[in-house]
């Protein structure tokens, strides 16, 4: 029963959702709409599970002063403070037109935004360093990749586009690289992935694939 019931639920829901593509009746759509709503509520509920999991994983290390306990403490304190700020003035926020509270906005503007932007900006430095130290034309494939990368980078910006005489051709070559070989490869990947997803979906619906139910 522990395995049969989830398989049965998966089969029924899966068949109903697939049927939506073939039965364009409003009653049927109302049914699938209801199921989608349940799904959205369930995924929102996963936030609570995530919260509990985060505490379960990191709190013991902090208490026992384990490896990197300081970082984990920062994580848990940040979590608690942001959560408290998010919950505080909740009613007031709703009544005043859902403006975010000052403290929560402050955390977002002056902590989250700079940290997130910094993490992303660091990529430029690491790409430059990795490109210089590791991106070598060691064989034909690496050479092709190197030439394509340099061409797309150069012709995508005004400095490359504006090179006298050849700038126009570089842009045309860059466009061709993106539109033809790039697309051919990506289409192949997309179609392969889609066929794989269809086959996995069918296996899950038919109960042949059970790994998502976990082991006993």
């Amino acid at each position, binding site marked *: 029963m522990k395995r049969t019931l989830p398989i049965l639920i998966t089969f029924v829901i899966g068949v109903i959702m697939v049927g939506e593509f073939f039965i364009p009746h409003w009653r049927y759509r109302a049914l699938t709409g209801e199921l989608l709503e349940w799904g*959205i509520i369930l995924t*929102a509920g996963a936030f609570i599970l995530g919260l509990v999991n985060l505490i379960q994983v990191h709190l013991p290390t902090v208490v026992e002063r384990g490896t990197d306990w300081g970082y984990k403490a920062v994580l848990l304190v940040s979590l608690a403070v942001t959560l408290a700020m998010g919950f505080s003035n909740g009613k007031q926020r709703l009544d005043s037109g859902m403006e975010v509270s000052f403290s929560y906005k402050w955390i977002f503007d002056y902590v989250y*935004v700079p940290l997130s932007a910094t993490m992303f900006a660091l990529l430029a*430095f690491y790409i430059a360093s990795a490109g210089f130290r590791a*991106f070598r034309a060691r064989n034909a494939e690496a050479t092709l990749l*190197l030439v394509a990368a340099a061409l797309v980078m150069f012709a995508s*910006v005004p*400095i490359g586009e504006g090179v006298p005489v050849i700038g126009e051709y570089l842009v045309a070559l860059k466009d061709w690289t993106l*539109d033809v070989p790039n697309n051919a490869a990506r289409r192949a990947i997309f179609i392969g992935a889609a066929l794989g997803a269809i086959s996995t979906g069918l296996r899950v619906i038919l109960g042949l694939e059970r790994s998502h139910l976990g082991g006993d």
Partner: protein
Amino acid sequence: MLDLLLRFQAMDRRWVFLGMAISIVVPMLLPFNLPFKVDGRVQDLYDRVEALEAGDAVYISADFDPGSRPELEPFFRTHLHHLFRKDVRVVMGTLWPTAPPLVKPILEEIAGEYDKEYGRDWTFLGYIDGRELAIKSLGQSVRKTYPLDDRGNKTADLPVMLGLDAIRDFDILTSVSAGFPGTQAYVLQIQGQYNLEMASACTAVSAPDYIPYYQSGQLFGLSGGMPGSAQYEKLVYADTPEENRPRLAATSGMNVLSVGHMYIIVLLFLGNLAFFLTRGGKED
């Protein structure tokens, strides 16, 4: 020469970082303007928005965070200017929990500049969790997916939603997307099923992924990264006198991008030159 190249190859990476920092900071301090052309994908996006008529409706899914802000915010701002200038109704939601504090003030600011009234000309529906499920649900009914807007009003009662429920009731769907859930999820979940007219503004790294969707007609337009945003700015503000233009963030960012790209290309060239001269190009 060989000795110099060997020393260059073994250079501390902090010098590389310093060079990158200079390549970014100098064009910011000493701005210069290099002309650039508009890509066909951005031109198509612009042309379709231009063809909208007053009263038409656009749904914007603003799915980005502070990390992708420099690439996508310029497009987002310019798109809102473009839409409000055309007197188009704007309904916006987001699938990213970190997006609302970022996108809501911008929407409010630009709507205010055009004297647009909340609830009648535009609305912000806020954040919805559920990823693909939320997208699928938007395909069926925006009103049911977002029973209340960000201000706690009933979505169905808002005048801006008159005649709008399922996403296909909107004339255009614009996905401003920094990753998942975003453009690809919209295309896979609902674009094909409902044959939506959809455009995407994405990060530069995602653009090659979405070109097949543009070629197949699933996206009518595509703006990739900062260059795409700069090209869109160029089109939207082409007839606006310079003194009346807002600060064109992507256009000014193109200088930084130009020098930064050149710096990386020079590093690639020198690194490979050193590799070939010192190892004779033989594989390890």
